[in-house]
């Protein structure tokens, strides 16, 4: 059994060959880049770190400072507000 702390899905098992036999090591999984929830393109300006340093940075550094920042790309956000404007005119 491995260490209890390292059983979370954050870590992955890696087999390492040595002269005495195989050893199991745990390494941190790479985080994936966040994507737009409408068009599924990669979001630019969104921070993703591997070593769990996410809490060190300020909120304005992690996501773009606009409505739906970090969830929608700029084009989808613009289309969303265009629909709102056209409904207001009606």
């Amino acid at each position, binding site marked *: 059994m491995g260490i209890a702390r390292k059983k979370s899905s954050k870590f992955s098992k890696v087999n390492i060959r040595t002269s005495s036999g195989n050893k199991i090591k745990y390494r941190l999984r790479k985080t994936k880049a966040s994507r737009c929830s409408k068009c599924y393109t990669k979001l630019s300006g969104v921070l993703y770190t591997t070593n769990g340093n996410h809490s060190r940075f300020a909120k304005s550094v992690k996501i773009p400072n606009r409505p739906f920042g970090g969830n929608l790309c*700029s084009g989808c*956000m*613009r289309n969303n*507000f*265009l629909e*709102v*404007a056209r409904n*207001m005119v009606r």
Partner: protein
Amino acid sequence: MKTGDIILKISGRDAGNIGTITEVLDNNYVVIDGNTRKRKCNIKHLEFLGKNIPVRKDTDRNNILDLIKKAGFQFKEIKKGNKREKKIQEKTNLKKIKSIVEPKAGKK
């Protein structure tokens, strides 16, 4: 595109907020004010809502907001800098109290 046209900002930090054109600078650029920040803005970042209000270059922000409401648009007003002002006041008060209680080192 004229002064007084009611617009909705589509892009940037103020996206989704209503305002008016207070000054036309160029074929591409205007100055906007209202429920947004007062700033220079490209026309591509605005959507015109098809109504006009009597506004001048010098009109006050509160008057503009009233005129937009009378035109039939509803919105939540942005509160400007209330939290920051409170923090600054608290800091200044603390400094005053410390200076009274703890006199500077070196004085006898």
